[in-house]
């Protein structure tokens, strides 16, 4: 178990190096610091002096990979790659264009992101699985058929419409909940409710349909026939046998996203004004703040890899036959 974990962690390192090199190539080689400066300074007729000043201010005035002017190990460490890309391995993200420390921002914004994303994940999972089990319970009846059609209809609506409609009807027209905003603690509940409800509803179509296919596949297997032959009720068969055996495909899809919940959702957070990492990212993209985008790419990859490892661990928890070696 421990050896397995260690090996997986070691295997993650080359992947993170790959991510790092890719982002480095995208942000510094394809798009040179000079381009960045020009984009930031806006006007077409920027002076070379202004570009140089911008580069010095942001620490982009060094050579990319090899600093020939420095001596010793500084030849490698006093470069853009070392200062801005390799430093991310120790979660040293530097400063954004607004001058704030990105690491601190991430720490402060994880909470609000999680306050939305975690309930959405948990409630969404339960709601989707419940709907899926209901459809499977009534399988090959009109209820199931129309349930599937309903799922396809719900899936065909853009997520943006759910948010816009939710904000317009629930918050603006009926004044039930605040339209956007966020405060910490128990008072924040009224701000969290609307985004959570909207996100869960938006996910039902795709989610319930996906879990239904898992359960339908499961229900054709022999052990289900045996369970029925024993005289178990259909509800018991579904909840005790089918749900448990469907766990592996459910976990495959669900566990991997748990760590990435920290990142929040770009669209939901920006619409509802949640000061989380999602809105941070979207602001950075719109302001073309490459330092923040780079940091979020790296953080997202780290969390994804953690999710993959967690998925493997959860298999051995759900299915004792799975041994991690």
């Amino acid at each position, binding site marked *: 178990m421990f050896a397995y974990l260690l090996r997986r962690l070691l295997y993650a390192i*080359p*992947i993170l190096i*790959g*991510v790092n090199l*890719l*982002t480095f190539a*995208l*942000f510094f080689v*394809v*798009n040179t610091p000079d*381009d960045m400066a*020009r*984009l930031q300074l806006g006007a077409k007729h920027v002076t070379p002096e202004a570009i140089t000043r911008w580069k010095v201010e942001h620490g982009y005035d060094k050579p990319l990979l090899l600093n020939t002017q420095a001596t010793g190990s500084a030849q490698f460490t006093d470069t853009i790659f070392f200062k801005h890309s390799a430093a991310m391995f120790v979660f040293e993200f530097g400063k954004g264009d607004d001058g704030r420390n990105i690491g601190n921002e991430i720490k402060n914004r994880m909470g609000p992101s999680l306050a939305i994303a975690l309930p959405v994940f948990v409630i969404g999972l339960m709601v989707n699985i419940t709907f899926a089990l209901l459809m499977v319970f009534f399988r090959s009846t009109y209820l199931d058929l129309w349930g599937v059609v309903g799922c*396809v*209809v719900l*899936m*065909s*609506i*853009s*997520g*943006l*419409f759910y948010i*816009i409609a939710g904000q*317009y009807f629930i918050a*603006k027209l009926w004044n039930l909940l605040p339209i956007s905003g966020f405060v910490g603690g128990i008072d924040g509940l009224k701000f969290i409710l609307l985004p959570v409800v909207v996100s869960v509803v938006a996910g039902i179509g795709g989610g319930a349909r996906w879990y239904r296919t898992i359960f*339908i*596949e499961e229900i*054709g297997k022999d052990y289900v026939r045996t369970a029925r032959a024993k005289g178990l009720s259909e509800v018991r068969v579904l909840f005790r046998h089918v749900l448990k055996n469907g766990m592996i495909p459910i976990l495959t899809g669900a566990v991997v996203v748990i760590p*990435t919940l920290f*990142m929040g959702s*770009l*669209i939901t957070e920006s619409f509802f004004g949640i000061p989380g990492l999602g809105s941070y*990212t*979207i602001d950075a*993209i*719109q302001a*073309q703040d*490459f330092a923040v*985008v*780079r940091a*979020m*790419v790296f953080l*997202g*990859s780290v969390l*994804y*890899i953690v999710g993959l490892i967690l998925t493997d661990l959860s298999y051995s928890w759900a299915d004792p036959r799975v041994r991690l070696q």
Partner: protein
Amino acid sequence: MTAGSINFVPVILWTDGLIFALLAGVLVLAWIISRQPHLRAPWAAVARRPMAMGAALVLGVFVVIGLLDSLHYRDKLADSLADKPQYSVEVLSAFDALVGRLRTEQEKTYSAPLAMQLYAKEFVERDGVTVREYPRLKYGGAALKHADERLPDITRRGIIGAAQGLAASLLLFAALAGWQARRSRLPLGEWLMNWGEGRLGWPGRTITLVLALLLMLGGVLAHLAADYHVFGTDKVGQDVLYITLKSIRTGLVIGTLTTLVTLPLAIGLGIAAGYFRGWVDDVIQYVYTVLNSIPGVLLIAAAVLIVQGYIESNPGLFDNAAARADVRLLALCLIMGMTSWTGLARLLRGEALKLSTLDYVDAARAFGVSHTRIISRHIFPNVFHLVLIAIVLDFSGLVLAEAVLSYVGVGVDPSMYSWGNMINGARLELAREPAVWWQLGAAFVFMFTLVLAANLFADGVRDAFDPRLQGRR
């Protein structure tokens, strides 16, 4: 033909060329499939599904509009010399020429659907006094003398349009019934009975119904659009129906061209990894794990920002705004394709891994058949259904993704007609008092119709092609 005798010059944008190349490819593929019974069988199964065929008809309408909108040209300027013609910088399409007035009849600003007045009051000079009232529209309901005439006029147009659509569909149905009855050597009455009871072997009732609905809808829209702005007008007075119809092409381009980029990567790398194994497999797996671990939106955003920067710093490369927007659209397709091949590649790798251990592949190897030949003859045909299912399933997701990316600010060019841009603009419009909802509504209706049709069609294709689903229904 000399340049002087025609008064326009065709413009082939990058995406136009690719779309028609894709169309040609699909037609060739369809021809090949229609000649092979074992390839035709699953398609025949799709054709027997009412839902899939109804959806296919709706998709067909969208595709026709999209294709018409991909035939671009530039008008000759009226005052240019005959021997040295000059052309307008504005790039139009066959679709623009077809709808004509819809594009040119521009109001001053917002107006509600089917309105005859602007949406906001303005100071107007009337009989020497300045009064504050809703000014009349220049084109919308211009023939009306009084506001009371509006509703009856709209109803009249609606009924005429629907009646014409109904008449056209009845005519079509009569022709179809006559032809089919003769082909199957049945008396007309018996064929009609079969049709009514759904015993034709193909979903005749659904197709007739959907066709009739489409024709009637088209009739109503055509009659209303002749004198009204059916979905109102936007901030600069542009007809919203026109905008949303133009957005169809953008959605289709993203949904299809992205897949076109995905396919060679996914098929090539996926099969190579599964077939060759060893270090090839390791390298390919490494590459797609790296790509996969980067959050998709962020990778797309990063790449789009870079392309955007490139386009902005090299304005001289594009001779007009349409070409610039088009290159950005193409870049978006490329980027989305480069980032979304991993899922299909992983699927194909697994399948190729399984297939390459089968006896007939071993036998082929023993006979000294080359790798390329084994892959093209034995592996690829056996994973083709997975590729096809992935294509149709991805399409709707890509259309939806365009809206989200445009909202984030890394989608298509802001000057381009797209549902994403429409929704993006609608956020501020909804906050107005009273809310301007029609732009959002139009984008919603059209996008929803396209995505729903695509999803229903994809379901039909998946059910027919996926061997695991066979015999379960």
